[in-house]
């Protein structure tokens, strides 16, 4: 039976993992791991899952164990955050490049130094080129729903890629929200049984993973990953439609919020989209034509669809919760602006780097950004393309 309960993001995602009941979970059990894994370990200790829980000595080992488990044909999961993801780096590429699906919730937190454990997107944005699908969540319900959808998205035979589901550290991970939990059985029916086409344990059909791949074939294998990412887009949409049929909650590549007739808009990922919706509503009440585009899927990056949804705007501000040091603006800014370059019309585009190390972003601050954007629309002049929102001078 479905239940409506109040849960923290960590508890909700830990519960999703329990309901998925993966064959293998390999995880580093100490901080920067979050209570998410603590929760799952509790389910495991209580005998509520059939999972083989492998506790290892580092995140590098956790992801390595996941490679082995996934190659053996197990439905595999782990979870991490911040420094933990950084330590997995090398093996993130191995998992994706061996075309081994798995789902990993990542609690978005800042990277050291200086030491900080609060929310920003530096961890997963830094891992944007490692070949994983990346889906960002606005609230706890979405994080829960995305983790469930992640399983069939990545396992689809013409995709076969690992999936990161992110949720904002503390803002979602430690805050209690209303969540509708699905029934265990309906989740099992939704994700189906995992059929691995090349299991290492299938002795009738022996297979070698990760052999040496020299200049004569390596490039071809990378080209295959590009195609898999393109196909992931269809898989995300297909799974999203099936999930909507089941729950009534509709998920696409992104969400347009009061965007259709908007002249000015912001684009954001994660929990800030929720804050921005409030700011949009307040300004709409005052007759302002403002809107929001909440990007859900960052990898594969939906450049064509974004171009179509944004080209009618006069001014667009991209909100990046991470810095790409030495580049021109945040990574989201660079990619969205590049996507618009191929669209019919190009709005004036600005970049706001915000919220690093857990710096709060308020409805009022977003409101003041909209004021600035209105000024840009009137003058057709961008004074600062890149703004570090809220940094003290």
């Amino acid at each position, binding site marked *: 039976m479905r239940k409506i309960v109040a849960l923290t993001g960590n508890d909700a995602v830990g519960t999703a993992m329990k309901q998925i009941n993966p064959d293998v979970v390999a995880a580093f059990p100490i901080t920067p791991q979050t209570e998410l894994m603590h929760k799952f370990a509790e389910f495991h200790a209580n005998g509520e899952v059939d999972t083989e829980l492998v506790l290892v000595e580092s995140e590098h080992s956790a992801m390595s164990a996941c490679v082995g488990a996934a190659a053996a044909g197990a439905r595999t999961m782990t979870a991490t955050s911040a420094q933990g993801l950084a330590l997995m780096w090398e093996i993130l590429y191995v998992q994706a*490049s*061996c*075309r*081994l699906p798995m789902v990993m919730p990542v609690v978005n937190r800042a990277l050291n130094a200086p030491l900080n454990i609060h929310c920003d997107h530096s961890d997963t944005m830094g891992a944007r080129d490692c070949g994983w699908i990346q889906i960002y969540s606005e609230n706890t319900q979405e994080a829960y729903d995305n983790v469930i959808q992640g399983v069939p998205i990545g396992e689809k035979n013409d995709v*076969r890629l690992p999936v990161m589901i992110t949720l904002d550290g503390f803002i979602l991970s430690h805050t209690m929200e209303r969540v509708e939990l699905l029934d265990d059985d309906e989740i099992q029916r939704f994700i189906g049984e995992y059929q691995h086409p*090349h299991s290492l344990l299938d002795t009738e*059909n*022996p*297979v*070698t*993973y*990760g*052999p040496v*791949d020299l200049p*004569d*074939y*390596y*490039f*071809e*294998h990378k*080209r*295959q990953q590009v195609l*898999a990412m393109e196909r992931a887009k269809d898989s995300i949409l297909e799974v999203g439609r099936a999930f909507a049929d089941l729950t009534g909650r509709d998920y696409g590549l992104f969400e347009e919020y009061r965007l259709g007739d908007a002249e000015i808009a912001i684009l954001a990922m994660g929990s800030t989209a929720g804050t921005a919706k409030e700011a949009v509503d307040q300004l709409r009440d005052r007759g302002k034509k403002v809107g929001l585009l909440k990007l859900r899927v960052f990898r594969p990056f939906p450049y064509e669809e974004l171009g179509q949804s944004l080209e009618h705007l006069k001014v667009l501000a991209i909100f990046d919760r991470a810095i790409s040091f030495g580049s021109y603006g945040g990574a989201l800014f660079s990619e969205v602006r590049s996507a618009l370059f191929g669209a019919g019309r190009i709005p004036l585009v600005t970049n706001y780097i915000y919220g690093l190390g857990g710096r709060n972003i308020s409805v009022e601050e977003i409101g003041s950004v909209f004021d600035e954007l209105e000024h840009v629309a009137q003058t057709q002049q961008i004074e600062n393309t890149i703004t570090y929102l809220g940094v003290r001078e």
Partner: protein
Amino acid sequence: MRKERGWQEIPIGGLILEAGNAEEYETGSWRTYRPVKDGEKCIHCLRCWIYCPDSAVLTEDGNQVGFDLEHCKGCGICAAECPPKVRAIEMVLESNFEEKE
């Protein structure tokens, strides 16, 4: 040499789906030292055959009959494993053969 196949024709992720196909990949050119056996000394105990990591020791009817030089990488394990009282295998610099061949 085998025709190099396109990216849509090969298994994904660099997977090798057939067992034993290392035979198709010639690794003999990596060799710096070549094992050379003294047939007079060899007692056909086949220790070299057991220990060779590349399955490059050739046998016939239980006898050691030489080396598969298309796959032998010249590691010298066979020479080291040949019983001390026999010492039938000598590792010889590959360049000695190039000059002659």
